[in-house]
């Protein structure tokens, strides 16, 4: 089955707009009420309570991690942090749909995806602290090195998927990026390659309405999900603050790719509640009303309300998750504060995989120079 994001026909009145945040598929209303959407329902009809609880737990941990990241930055322990508050549903729920062999190609903001894939506490902070670049064990984690160059990972994911296809495996590559990234050539080229070669890659666009100070309307006039069909890629536009809708859409997309049908595209319409990074001042470009409006669509509160109502989660369950989150945050803090800066000579490590004599000479000279101070 392919599912295509359809444009409103002229008789439906005004053309659809990129910033129409209610033109989305959802199955949890902002107050947590479960509604039905035939395209989404079938993908999550089998969800057992323990999976729902795991989903909720990872979202709570992600939020707690984010709070801790911001605090650590404010205390001078991290050089920078990119908050993900408000985006927990799309990050965690889409990651929960993955299989072990799939490889995620994340941007810098996908903390919830890393968490759901089992990242260790240190994996979240060493790069932001300035100790490492992107040095976690990407193969063990199933997450490619975090990408800062906007959109570059979409091509990497597509190439990896082309390899998976050649290997006759059912592994799928998943590229995560923001709304701003969809303006980059790399993302558009990735869609060309993925479509032409029917590569098993899923593109997840977390449309959080802003690329630093630029509203999504600077990147797109029509909804972003509407672009994919032009490349021959089926797409869905879902409420990114609805964890169940995100999970369902991701299962649809992964199934499509695994069955050899080629790429799929998800636009998850969400919102970045915090600043772009801890160096950003969002009061310069957006008003408090907007943030307030989106706070009322909080993905975590929404899922919690639904799970309580469904009898899957109660006060004691919530308290237990809160304790787990605090313990996890403490581990992250310890990993951050306990980080030991590497030996100066290690700046020369790993530039090449094979020995490189001129560089070894530079290393020796520099070490000798440093030693001169202790002589």
């Amino acid at each position: 089955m392919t599912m295509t994001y359809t444009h409103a026909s002229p008789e439906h009145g005004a053309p659809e707009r990129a910033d129409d945040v209610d033109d989305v598929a959802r199955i949890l209303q902002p107050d947590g009420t479960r509604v039905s959407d035939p395209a989404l329902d079938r993908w999550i009809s089998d969800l057992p309570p323990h999976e729902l609880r795991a989903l909720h737990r990872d979202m709570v941990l992600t939020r707690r991690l984010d709070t801790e990241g911001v605090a650590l930055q404010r205390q001078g322990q991290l050089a920078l942090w990119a908050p993900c508050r408000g985006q927990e549903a799309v990050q965690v729920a889409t990651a929960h749909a993955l299989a072990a062999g799939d490889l995620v190609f994340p941007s810098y903001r996908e903390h919830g995806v890393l968490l759901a894939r089992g990242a260790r506490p240190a994996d979240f902070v060493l790069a932001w602290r300035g100790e490492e670049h992107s040095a976690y064990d990407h193969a063990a984690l199933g997450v490619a090195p975090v990408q800062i160059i906007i959109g570059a990972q979409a091509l990497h994911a597509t190439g990896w998927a082309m390899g998976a296809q050649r290997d006759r495996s059912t592994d799928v590559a998943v590229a995560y990026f923001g709304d701003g990234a969809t303006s980059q050539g790399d993302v558009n080229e990735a869609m060309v390659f993925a479509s032409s070669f029917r590569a098993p890659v899923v593109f997840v666009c977390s449309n959080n309405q802003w690329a630093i100070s630029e509203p999504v309307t600077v990147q797109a006039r029509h909804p972003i999900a509407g672009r994919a069909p032009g490349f021959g890629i089926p797409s869905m536009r879902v409420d990114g603050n609805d964890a169940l809708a995100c999970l369902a859409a991701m299962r649809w997309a992964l199934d499509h790719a695994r069955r050899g049908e080629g790429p799929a595209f998800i636009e998850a319409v969400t919102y970045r509640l915090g600043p772009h990074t801890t160096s950003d001042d969002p009061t310069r470009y957006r008003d408090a009303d907007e943030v307030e409006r989106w706070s009322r669509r909080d993905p975590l509160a929404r899922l919690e309300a639904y799970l309580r109502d469904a009898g899957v989660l109660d006060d004691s369950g919530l308290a237990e998750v809160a304790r787990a989150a605090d313990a996890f945050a403490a581990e992250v803090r310890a990993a951050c504060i306990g980080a030991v800066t590497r030996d100066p000579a290690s700046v020369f490590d790993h530039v090449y995989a094979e020995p490189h004599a001129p560089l070894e000479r530079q290393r020796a000279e520099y070490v000798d120079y440093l030693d001169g101070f202790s002589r």
Partner: protein
Amino acid sequence: MTALTLGAAITAGLARALETDDRVLLLGEDIGTLGGVFRVTDGLQKRFGAERVIDAPLAEAGIVGTAVGLALRGYRPVVEIQFDGFVYPAFDQIVCQVAKLHYRTNGRVRMPMVIRIPWAGGVGAAEHHSESPEAYFVHTPGLRVVAPSTPQDAYVMLRQAVASDDPVVFFEPKRLYHSQGEVDPDGDLADAPPMHLARVAREGTDATVVTYGAMVRTALDAALAAEDEGLSLEVVDLRSLSPIDMNTVAASVRKTGRVVVAHEAARTAGIGAELVASITEQCFEYLEAPPLRVTGHDIPYPPAKLEKHHVPDLDRILFAVDRVVEPGTAPSAASAAAIEGGVR
């Protein structure tokens, strides 16, 4: 004269350029309401309107490529690349198109474009935010490449770059954005030194340190420290990296007979290699010692906690100075004392 930071001086230069020529347009990511991530375009969209100060989609090739078209249409685009490490997606447009159109068309097409790039490290930034890509552009004929190191130069050279009919890559040393200096906002451009000329930032007699951008500060600090040892260093601020004003460099080297070239970009095939080769060609018989380079290592820019081991500091400059002053010797006790606590 007014005291301005280097960042504010560029803002003032942009405002003046927008004011005096309505063909001047600014184009870049977040340069509107936000005023740019470094606030260099702060207030300009409010003042000149969104038609002239344009928040562009997040696509560097798109920004530079459309600027080519705007230039063909008679505009004078000034584009902002948000950080040094993000110029690479636009590299193809810059080196294949911007640099060559004038030549390819036998001079019929001009590319009066300025590409502003907050540049280089030393500010504890994340990956891809501290790159020194200047040599790539210097290696490309058809581009002018400049790097001011004082607020006054930033103000004047920005306006000269906008007025130039050649494309100019304009590197802004981000670790100097907040450094203050006197700027003459009403000076006549015609009286200012042309942007292709180097500047003797400090006179001296024993050795010359040639450098540019934020490293000019470091070199001046090194010259102060050397003075305590009784050494008189001359510091030449290149200002322009393409073309390089070899007259000023060579005059200084002929005077002192000894030269150290310093930059934070990687060593191999960097600007230092070019300078040392040209100095050797032009000043061979005046040299008392082989010219030396003090540079970043041939490594990708390291994580922030280790960047002090990459970006040359005062100590590394003094170490090289000692070696050109007394070839074959170790650093003097005095310079070792002067740098105590500095490196580690």
